[in-house]
């Protein structure tokens, strides 16, 4: 099994085998993370540039730690965001490339930005979120977490609840889960479901109870009112009245159903306090897996392609 890639853009262009390979590599990486000395030599002498055109504390932290655990040099370019706005993405990529970067972690507000950058640099590009498109790292850590709890994806019923229009991780998860053989149901305010959602091979329910009915896994999204046009949703209060995951709603799901959220969470909006603090909600597992998955992504790219091939 091998995965020959220079870059990671998203789950749309990965096969089920690719995804399984990344997940099993991530499981190996967890072994390193469980050591007292969390240092492995895989990326020794390599440099990782974190090029973020959007702020994000946790994604940056997990990429940075993952690179450091694998002994890479890490440079964070987020702070120079102001000058980045004036220079084209390709020119910025050239600059970083010429300085000898081996990996560029890009988060960018425009869909397709990682692909555009990858075309003009030697370095491997990892998409850490592009517009409303994809976020493969976050999605793979969700998949790893599900796999650890549920063993396999075949026949698993997964409900994705919330804002699918603006959530790139929800879309990556739809690509990944449907490829891996899970049954995916989605629910959310109709204004926040993707146009053409029914063609993604998922079932659409406006009644959230139908979506979570007999579900093994419930994935929620961030509800970012500030990021949205005010014409989509009247208020978060109204959202939670219809879509919040609470104990009442969980009665429809399987008894051992797990509830996940990509964070940062707004307590009581997407998920009720009671559920967040219950063992069914495994947000902490997700966070713990976030570094292992990124280590796996680095390792696979360093072995198979790009400047390191």
């Amino acid at each position, binding site marked *: 099994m091998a995965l020959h890639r220079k870059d990671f853009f998203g789950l749309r262009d990965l096969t089920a085998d690719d995804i399984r390979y990344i997940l099993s590599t991530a499981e190996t990486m967890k072994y390193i993370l469980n050591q007292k000395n969390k240092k492995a030599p895989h990326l020794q002498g390599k440099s990782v540039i974190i090029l973020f055109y959007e702020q994000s504390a946790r994604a940056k932290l997990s990429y940075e730690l993952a690179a450091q655990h694998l002994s890479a040099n890490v440079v964070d370019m987020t702070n120079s965001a102001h000058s980045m706005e004036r220079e084209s993405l390709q020119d910025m990529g050239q600059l970083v490339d010429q300085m000898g970067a081996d990996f560029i972690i890009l988060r960018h507000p*425009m*869909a397709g930005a990682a692909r555009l950058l990858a075309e003009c640099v030697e370095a491997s590009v990892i998409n850490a979120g*592009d517009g409303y498109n*994809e976020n493969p790292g976050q999605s793979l850590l969700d998949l790893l977490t599900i796999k650890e709890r549920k063993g396999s994806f075949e026949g698993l019923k997964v409900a994705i609840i919330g804002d699918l229009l603006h959530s790139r991780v929800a*879309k990556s998860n739809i690509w990944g889960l449907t490829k891996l053989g899970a049954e995916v149901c989605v629910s959310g305010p109709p204004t926040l479901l993707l*146009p*053409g959602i029914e063609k993604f091979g998922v079932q659409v329910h406006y009644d959230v109870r139908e979506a979570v009915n007999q579900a093994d896994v419930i994935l929620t999204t961030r509800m970012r009112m500030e990021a949205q046009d005010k014409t989509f949703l009247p208020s978060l209060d109204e959202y939670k009245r219809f879509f919040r995951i609470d104990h009442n709603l969980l009665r429809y799901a399987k008894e051992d159903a797990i509830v996940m959220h990509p964070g940062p969470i707004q307590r009581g909006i997407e998920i009720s306090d009671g559920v967040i603090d219950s063992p069914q909600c495994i947000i902490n597992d997700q966070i713990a897996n976030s570094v292992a998955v990124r280590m796996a992504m680095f390792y696979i790219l360093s072995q198979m392609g790009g400047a390191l091939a």
Partner: protein
Amino acid sequence: MKTILKNCKLITPPYSEEKLYDIFIEGGLIADIGENLHVEDARELDLDGHVVLPGFIDMHCNICEPGFENIEDISTVSRSAARGGFTSITCEPNTKPVIDNKTVVEYIISKSKAQASVNIYPYGSMSMGCQGTAIAEIGEMYEAGVVAISDGDEFIDSAALMRNVMRYSRMFDLPIMTHCEDRSLSGKGVMNEGYTASCLGLSGMPREAEELQVARNILLAEITGARLHIAHVSTGGSVRMVRDAKKRGLQVTCETCPHYFALTEEAVEDYNTFAKVNPPLRTQEDVEAILEGIADGTIDAIASGHSPTSRTDKDKEFGNAAYGISALETAFPISFTKLVETGIISLARLVELMSKKPAEILKLEQKGEIAVGKDADLIVIETKGTQIIEPELFASKAKFSPFAGQEVKGRVVYTIVGGKIVS
């Protein structure tokens, strides 16, 4: 200067396709058409049975001068047009300054006479600065020579202003070219709304953004009696509404562009910014409705939709890239390949769409057909061999195309404007 084009094949009545004709050109006009013509000291050009058509007339074209000469200018756009078989092009008013007064109209007309190898007919703006707030000096521009009014790719949101533009223009009987886009619906969209946009994570412009305003403008045209022309129709719904309007006897005409029947939104896959146009490329269903509209006469004209932009503005993230297409040099081969070669329409009908009807709508009485006394704006075409579309060879400054690499038929061998071979 006397010229005779020998052995021309003419495809429209009263001429017979079985015979070969000679066309005698004198003083820029077609002086005679017949078999085996002989004229003393006329220069002869033997066309050896090639098809001769009336030159194409582009109803929807951006020449970018004045103001954006780095993108395109009068001399490059006219060479590009000539290569594509267009002997006359129009000019959308979104130049800088905007064509909203007679000075700019006169500038374009005089500069075109000096520098352009094809005829250039400017459109005047409907609103001052194409800003959609105040009515432009349409009468002054009419007297200076505009052949239609338009706000380019801007849309007049105010129904009250649109209604007044329509009423006002009646005294000049000018056609009103409208790009139809409800901007509250198209919003931040950059491609057609739907599955493909969702797959790519790009915001969509729904069909209803176009259709809603096609409906509004048809309604206003009915009330005011204005001559409405819907520019670049891209959706099945728009075709249907124009068909209904025609059935009811309204003075409504419309055009589409080759990319709206030769491509779908799938051309945007891989974030191909060369396929970023406004209105956006739609779906196969829309393509089929447009083909039907072309075949049944609902669609009056095929315009190039030439809207050049710089390569720098295309080499960007899809959302940040400029809209635009370099289309003058691909319009005929794409239309010929997709419409005539496939048997959807005849070559004669294509000529109607690209020459005769545009001349009628714009009231260019000397153009649009091959007849004695008309301007000698002619093209000679070759339809047998195939060629590959190679944008790097375009005469336009915009050397890119979503059709790059496609194998097509239909080549323009000569373009003759006012009796002179210009390409």
